[in-house]
């Protein structure tokens, strides 16, 4: 009887010790995933590197303060590099427009949007526009010079081509076009007179109205710019926590921030991305000027 009791106790002891080892392994695994206290963030290559970083400084300070995580900037010159960084796990989070997201998603299953930034009108959608300097006239007898952002930018070749064709009856392939690498650059170069038309995001183009730029064509509403996380490098818990924190930023806080972050965020709507039918093979990766 006594022997039986000892045997049972020994079995229970063994089970307990195995359980403890298992729990330890799970805990270590979870800790390893959750322990990521530095996020490698690639902002959109909209402007110059510094300006881009400046725009996200308040948001990142907020994350540091509330989640005790540091955000390190991985500045990439173009979308292709951001997508590459996602694939090789050197980027945890990126700020992307819809087209680059779709391009990324097509080749990397770990990309997942967690928040979409609201626009000035309070909605998350935005539009791509064509803009020109008010006093300039488009001389159709000459080659029209078009300033584009980047090949994988939504407002780049993809939407500018559609808008030129649909609104101005201009075939882009018969005109001169060049990638200026950012929305701002496209607008500035047009303002300076180097180009006749700039393709850019509506909100950015709007800022340049104070410099005599005017919008001459607008696209339909497009899914907004989002923060896309790398599910390969971040744990579901951290992603969840990040999303919750971002969505819970109070108005009184984000209204003090500048640029895209100053209007708050909403949950992304995956269906909106499905509306975009893009044949990436038709997008040239280099300009013709």
């Amino acid at each position, binding site marked *: 009887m006594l022997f039986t009791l000892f045997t049972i106790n020994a079995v229970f002891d063994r089970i307990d010790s195995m359980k403890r080892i298992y729990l330890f392994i799970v805990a270590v695994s979870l800790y390893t995933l959750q322990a990521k206290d530095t996020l490698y963030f690639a902002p959109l290559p909209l402007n110059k590197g510094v300006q881009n*970083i400046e725009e996200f400084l308040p948001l990142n300070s907020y994350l540091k303060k509330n989640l005790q995580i540091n955000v390190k900037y991985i500045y990439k010159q173009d979308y292709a590099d951001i997508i590459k960084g996602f694939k090789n796990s050197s980027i945890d989070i990126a700020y992307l427009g819809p087209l680059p997201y779709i391009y990324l998603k097509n080749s990397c299953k770990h990309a997942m949007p967690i928040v979409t930034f609201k626009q000035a009108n309070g909605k998350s959608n935005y539009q791509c526009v064509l803009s020109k300097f008010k006093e300039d006239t488009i001389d159709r007898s000459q080659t029209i010079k078009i300033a584009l952002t980047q090949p994988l930018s939504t407002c780049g070749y993809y939407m500018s081509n559609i808008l030129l064709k649909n609104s101005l009856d201009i075939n882009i392939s018969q005109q001169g076009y060049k990638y200026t690498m950012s929305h701002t650059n496209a607008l500035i170069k047009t303002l*300076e007179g180097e180009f006749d038309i700039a393709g850019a995001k509506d909100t950015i183009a709007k800022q340049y109205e104070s*410099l*005599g730029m005017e919008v001459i064509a607008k696209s339909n509403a497009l899914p907004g710019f989002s923060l896309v996380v790398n599910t390969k490098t971040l744990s579901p818990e951290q992603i969840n926590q990040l999303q919750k924190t971002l969505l819970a930023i109070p108005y009184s806080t984000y209204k003090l921030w500048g640029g895209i972050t100053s209007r708050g965020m909403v949950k992304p709507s995956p269906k909106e991305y499905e509306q975009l039918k893009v044949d990436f093979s038709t997008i040239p990766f280099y300009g013709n000027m």
Partner: protein
Amino acid sequence: MKKQFILSAFLLFVLAYIVYEFLHKSKRNDVMRFTNKSLQMIKISYISILNTYKISAQKDMNHLLENKDVMELLKKFKYASQSEKNLIRGKIYRLLYKQYNTMRNLNIRQFHFHTPEGKSLLRFHKPHRSGDSLMDIRESIRVANILKEKISGFEGGKVYPGFRYVFPILYQGEHLGSVEFSIAFESIEKELNNVLPSLGYQLILSKRESYNKVFDWHKDYFIKSIISQEYYIENPEISLVTKKLQNNPTVKKLEEYIRTHTDIINSKIETKQSFSLPIVLDHIGYMIHFIDIKNTKNIHSAYIVAYSNFNELIDINRKYTIFCILLSTAIFLIFFLIVIVSRQLHTLSFQKENLQHLLDEQENIVILSSGELITYANQKFFDFFNIKSLNEFLVEYKCVCEKFIEDDRFFHLGKLEDPKDWVQAIRLLPKSKSIVAMMGEDLQLHSFSLSISIYEHNIYILSFSDISATMIEQMKLREKTLHDTLTNTYNREYFEQNIKQIKIDYTKTGNQLALCMLDIDFFKKVNDTYGHDIGDKVLIELVDTINRFSRKEDILIRWGGEEFIMIFKIHSQEALALVLENLRQAIEKHLFKRVKNITCSLGCSIYIPNEAIENTIKRADEALYRAKDSGRNRIIIL
């Protein structure tokens, strides 16, 4: 001894403290001199750089004023509607962006037009941001647009602080607003590094001039400085200068040092004046300069912090360490010497006391003297002269030789041609002649055998051994050997020993020496009649009679038997004859106890200078023979 030792140690300690303080102060002054020089260099460089930019800004301003298209647009802008303003802004941008690009290449960060009301008209560095009012937060905008004066200086802003050059735009007499050219600190830092290469330069901004002025959404452009909570730096995420410094391990080390030594910096930073911190870390010298930056209102707004190597600090430290080591060694040696000297002095003092005691115990008088001056004397000396100290003696006398009695039996200064050489002279004498006589406190004449030995160069030990008793005995003995035992007159021995000196003495100053031989007439008959005892008594009575009737200087010598020699000092032969006659009569008249009357015959001669005394005696003897031969009881002088 112990007291002296403690006192010496204390004085040495005080001296060491004073010297260490002096060294410490000198070191501080040296460091300060280098520090100030280095600080001045940075200040001058900084001012020169700003002045260069000032000239450049003025030149750009002149170009701008010459650009009529821009001026006309600005004039239109003043009165245009909002939509017209946007277009004009764009046109201005289109006209000037190339100029702006050139300016950027020359490190001008901001090219900014303002309306006459002090609102932003066009920021070339952020062209889409305009319309915000700057009048309240920017003194330079107020001065340029209200006072219509150009102004320059450091100033915070809604985006970045900068070193600003703001000019009012006056075109055809009309005020069209103002324009500013701003230099970012990056440009200053770049130029400073060209002129004075260092570990790094950083701008730390007062909160009022940075954080409090910028757009709310730009507040994250600044972070708190590690150096002080009251100062901000540009966020390293957007500032290459900050990032560069944060990646510099030496600067990080220095910042950490400052952060952990707030007491050093707080008191200085509160002064809002330029200052420097020389620091030694891991045996390497560093200098951190804080150059006060004033804004356009001449209020402190920032510091340029310059981190540089400062090897001179190590050199200075090393130099003063060597000084301190040398000083410590010197102090130790002095202390050691003091201890040794003290011990030696103590030993010497002890030995001196012992010696003094020993010398005082001596029967002899012992003195140390150079011959002229006495430097030391023992107790016997004091006792002999009845004085208490040497000084008492030295008040009256310099030399002990002054106390020597002038007696020819002893050595005295009168015997020397140069009395100064008395010590040498006495040393050359045989011991039997090294005898001096001195009068003691008992007013008795004391004779001393003087022995002299060298103590040290020109100092002699003079030992006076009192031989008065021996001398008396000796003199008595001598007297005895020189006297006739029966009559107590001098004897032949006396004559032999003294005749030389007598000749000298008696022939001085024109005198003459006369030598007489006196013989008792028929003395044999006396002996034969009365016996030798009576004969001896007769001789005694005769000598007594002669002595009574002789002069003091007349010398009577028993020559043998009843024969005597008498030596006279005379002026002339006649005088001699008188003296002798007087003497002859005295003898003749004297009644001798047993024999009653006797007579004497006298034969005399006068000593001829340089003749042998034997010849004089011979002549006297001849004279005596004649006196006898011619009847006796008479005087013959030859």
